[in-house]
């Protein structure tokens, strides 16, 4: 999130698109309701289902699953056509005035540069660049009139998304859609704040990244980034999924969002730093971040002479290793062992049955969890023959959240310490205990020999707490926070990091979270001070928000170039004529680090988006050096149909995202609308959590939500002769699942290009284990992915439904 949960109360308009906070983030919903009660916040809910969140909406806009880009681009078009965008913000703080290569084109649903490589469709992004003058500076037209400036390019691009066309695509009634456009665009003013809240409904598509880009473009045009009550607020699906992303659970990253080294592109540290360090933006400090990380991991062994042990890092082989790719490799027998650690892919991953089957190819499987999950029990699942499955399965009982201590990073980037309430039962251990013992056992094996033992034998691993079974979590936290190598003293923040090896830091964005607060006498992550001077809910001394305890990122954008707040009632920082007054930690150079002198606003007005090489928000995702905004599938979001769709693409003859990733095997089978006429979408419920591994083992929660069901509209039920509670079967090209029919007016057919389209909704919490077993919705989902993130397309597929 750019902002944080409490900040929702500061919004004038909240648009929830592809999220259902009332069920999946009740604590976030509380702040939306607070805003409604205290300042009359208006709530727009865009969802194919009338959700519990929609129950509180001022405007509920039904939308066909998978058409968010059309929906959002239509609002962008409306803002541009009616001059409702925030002109001064757009001119000064976005790349609207930047000139784009005149050869950049968009024709027939494809961007310029379409070509093939090794038989695959790819884009050559050469034309997705800015024009530069002879000194290499980007050419600009602050009048926004040049036909090649980003503003005009964008305007032309979205002009096809008029209300009529959008509604033919999305199925949203025109009058409702017009109200959404009017209400949301009313926030394009200095004294108004609009907040877009999203979750998996936006991301889980074969163009999920472009969906997010569309959200970003709209928010930039309306001047809603960097201000209280605004922002792009992605609600993460688990309490600490933000923390695990920060710690690089994704294969292409190192902790702190540093790129993972690539064997071909970065054979040496020098190559890595040259190619991955942008010349401008805060990322120009990349060498400090990486070298300090190497010092944290390899200690005294890491020296300038040996590239700080860079060669000991694992490197990417140019292949994809995301979730779906891992299971494809597993199915091909290329993966011998697998740790499912707090993860239940047999229920939670797409195409569940091929996933379960793939695990049959493993020699061993270790499951670390609270209960014997479907993944742990895959070898005796219904329909499997245990005698034929050779995989050796180990189960390590893990402590629950409240049975261990440590930090949890929420969606708003607040790293909050959580103390242990009770001891774990029986043999259950904390994850730290398990990983500590595991590492030591592996190291023991390497001491006896093995290939490439150096990284393991030389890894800094000294977390023992004398006299205690449990490793010392303070030592781990200090390493993540960073410390001076000579003294071992914690670093107050990442500004102190060096590229010489004098500092060590496991995750640069966390620097400062373990630094003692001088007033409160505890480390920052343990702070619980409720002081809120501004009344904006910033609570600067409650825990620690990365980066640098900043609550609202890009907050320079909350004032005009001369430092006057756009909206004095929502001021986060402002220039009082001689110095900066800061309620939030400034996200720009406010003071000269060396001299302490105030830096006047004109300077920071040049690059209010300090993490971005251009220094400004990117309406057009240009190909511009490392950390460019260009996605693999284009510099602007364009509507394509989901891989399985009941209709032709009305926007171009390009039916699907040409770069959509389609995997192999039965899990990637594509269904046709003739056979599978209804749209299938998946969702969660408040009573269960993810794959239900814990909640379906909790009697009080299974009591509330005991059985798998299939949501269908009253109209479809009538057509198929299905009564509420009937057992029905949902079929897709991948398989079938059974459940009880839930027939409610919360689902209604949509009119898409004159044709009625039905949506069938499946909650995905069930599996064959636990107190309340039931069919897993993911048996019928597919191995279709986004080309940038490889997230599966869980939200828009095709199915058939019958009475079972």
């Amino acid at each position, binding site marked *: 999130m750019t902002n944080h949960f409490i900040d929702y109360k500061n919004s004038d308009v909240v648009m929830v698109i592809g999220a259902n906070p009332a*069920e999946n983030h009740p604590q976030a919903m509380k702040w939306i*309701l607070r805003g409604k009660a205290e300042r009359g916040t208006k709530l727009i809910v865009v969802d194919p289902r009338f959700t519990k969140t929609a*129950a509180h909406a001022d405007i509920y806009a039904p939308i066909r699953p998978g058409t968010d880009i059309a929906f959002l681009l239509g609002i962008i078009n409306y803002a541009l056509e009616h001059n409702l965008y925030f002109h001064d913000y757009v001119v000064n703080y976005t790349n609207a005035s930047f000139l784009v290569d005149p050869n950049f084109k968009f024709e027939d649903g494809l961007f310029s540069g379409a070509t093939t490589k090794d038989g695959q469709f790819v884009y050559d992004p050469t034309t997705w660049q800015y024009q530069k003058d002879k000194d290499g500076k980007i050419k600009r037209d602050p009048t926004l009139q040049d036909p090649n400036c980003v503003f005009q390019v964008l305007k032309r691009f979205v002009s096809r998304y008029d209300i009529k066309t959008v509604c033919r695509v999305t199925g949203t009634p025109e009058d409702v859609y017009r109200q959404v456009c009017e209400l949301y665009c009313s926030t394009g003013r200095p004294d108004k704040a609009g907040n877009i809240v999203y979750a998996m409904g936006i991301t889980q598509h074969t163009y999920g990244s472009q969906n997010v880009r569309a959200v970003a473009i709209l928010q930039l045009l309306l001047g809603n980034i960097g201000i209280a009550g605004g922002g792009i607020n992605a609600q993460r699906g688990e309490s600490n999924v933000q923390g695990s992303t920060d710690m690089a659970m994704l294969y292409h990253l190192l902790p702190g969002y540093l790129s993972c080294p690539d064997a071909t592109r970065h054979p040496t540290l020098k190559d890595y730093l040259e190619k991955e360090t942008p010349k401008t933006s805060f990322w120009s400090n990349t060498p400090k971040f990486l070298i300090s990380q190497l010092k944290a991991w390899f200690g005294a062994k890491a020296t300038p002479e040996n590239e700080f042990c860079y060669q000991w890092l694992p490197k990417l082989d140019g292949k994809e290793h995301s979730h779906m790719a891992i299971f494809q490799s597993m199915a091909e027998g290329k993966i011998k062992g697998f740790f499912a650690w707090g993860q239940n892919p047999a229920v939670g991953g797409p195409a569940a049955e091929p996933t379960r089957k793939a695990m049959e190819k493993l020699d061993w499987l270790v499951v670390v969890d609270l209960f014997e999950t479907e993944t742990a029990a895959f070898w005796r699942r219904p329909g499997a023959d245990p005698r034929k499955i050779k995989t050796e399965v180990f189960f390590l009982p893990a402590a629950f959240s409240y049975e261990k201590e440590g930090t949890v990073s929420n969606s708003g980037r607040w790293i909050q310490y959580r103390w242990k309430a009770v001891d774990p039962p029986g043999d259950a251990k904390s994850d730290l205990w398990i990983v500590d013992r595991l590492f030591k056992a592996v190291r023991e094996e390497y001491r006896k020999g093995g290939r490439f033992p150096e990284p393991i034998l030389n890894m800094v691993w000294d977390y023992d707490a004398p006299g205690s079974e449990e490793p010392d979590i303070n030592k781990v936290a200090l390493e993540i926070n960073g410390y001076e190598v000579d003294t071992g003293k914690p670093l107050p923040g990442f500004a102190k990091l060096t590229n010489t090896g004098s500092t060590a830091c496991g995750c640069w964005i966390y620097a400062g979270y373990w630094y003692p607060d001088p007033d409160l006498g505890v480390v920052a992550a343990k702070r619980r001070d409720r002081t809120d001077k501004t009344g904006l809910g910033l609570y600067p001394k409650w825990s620690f928000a990365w980066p640098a305890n900043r609550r609202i990122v890009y907050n320079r954008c909350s004032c005009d170039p001369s430092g006057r707040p756009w909206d004095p009632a929502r001021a986060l920082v402002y220039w009082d004529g001689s110095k900066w007054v800061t309620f939030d930690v400034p996200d720009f150079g406010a003071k000269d680090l060396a001299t302490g002198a105030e830096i006047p606003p004109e300077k920071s007005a040049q690059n209010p988006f300090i993490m971005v090489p251009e220094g400004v928000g990117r309406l057009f995702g240009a190909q511009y050096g490392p950390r460019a905004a260009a996605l693999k599938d284009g510099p602007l979001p364009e509507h394509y149909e989901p891989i399985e769709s009941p209709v032709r693409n009305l926007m171009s003859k390009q039916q699907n995202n040409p770069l959509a990733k389609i995997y192999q095997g039965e899990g990637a089978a594509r269904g046709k609308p003739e056979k599978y006429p209804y749209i299938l979408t998946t969702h969660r419920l408040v009573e269960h959590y993810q794959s239900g591994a814990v909640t379906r083992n909790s*009697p*009080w929660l299974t*009591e509330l939500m005991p059985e798998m069901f299939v949501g269908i509209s009253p109209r479809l039920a009538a057509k198929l002769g299905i009564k509420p509670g009937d057992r029905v079967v949902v079929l897709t090209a991948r398989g079938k699942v059974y459940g009880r029919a*839930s027939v409610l007016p919360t689902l209604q057919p949509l009119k898409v290009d004159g044709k009625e389209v039905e949506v069938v909704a499946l909650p995905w919490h069930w599996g064959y284990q636990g107190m309340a077993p039931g069919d897993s919705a993911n048996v019928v989902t597919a191995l279709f992915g986004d080309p940038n993130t490889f997230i599966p397309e869980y939200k828009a597929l095709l199915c058939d439904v019958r009475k079972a």
Partner: protein
Amino acid sequence: MPKAVLVDLTKCIGCRSCMVACKQWNDLPAERQGFVNDWATPRDTTAETWTVVKYYIEDKGGRVVWRFVKRQCMHCVDPACVKACFAGALRKTPEGPVIQDPSRCIACLYCFNACPFQVPRYRTGGEGPVIMQKCRFCFDPGGIYDRVGQGQAPACVRACPGGALKFGEREALIKEAKERIAQNPGRYVNQVYGESEFGGTSWLYLSDVPFEELGFPSAARPAMLSLLTWTPLAAGLWLAAKEA
């Protein structure tokens, strides 16, 4: 000063945390009532489920309205159940809660029949005698389930993330409810349910949907079977049965 809870139905998000918190605090077992079409299982209060959130889903000519209505014992100001109970198992406390003494309950069903909200339920099955059980407003003087007597809000109120439940003094909450109505024209129906209905209740409700539509009994109708208030005849019969 009698305590009360103000339920603002316009703020309820249907998260059902209150239901779980109630079971957790009161050590109540889970039941298995099975699937219901509108997801709101368990549908109704039982001897082991003292509070439920009922769903009201209506298609009002293309506009769907979905409301979540927490129900439990209303802790009436002048409770019919207490009047009906000749075994002396129920009493109205000065603090507001209507609480029961299970050791005195003889499972006569009188309170169930007297209650205008059909709240009292009887534990059948399981061990021990058949007794009436219902919400006790987390008031258990001297017992392990006490919260209100210790100056704490009931468990459900404590758990509510939506801000739908507010615990306080009855008089103050009625005042606040009226202020909310006055300050938000058009947001609520002009009624604080429980202020005077059935002689007044300790659980008070605000809503934007008329209360009758949400299944609240209208005070205009006579309370069901209120005739079955304790009579000497009935008492004699029951006492005889007990002694036999």
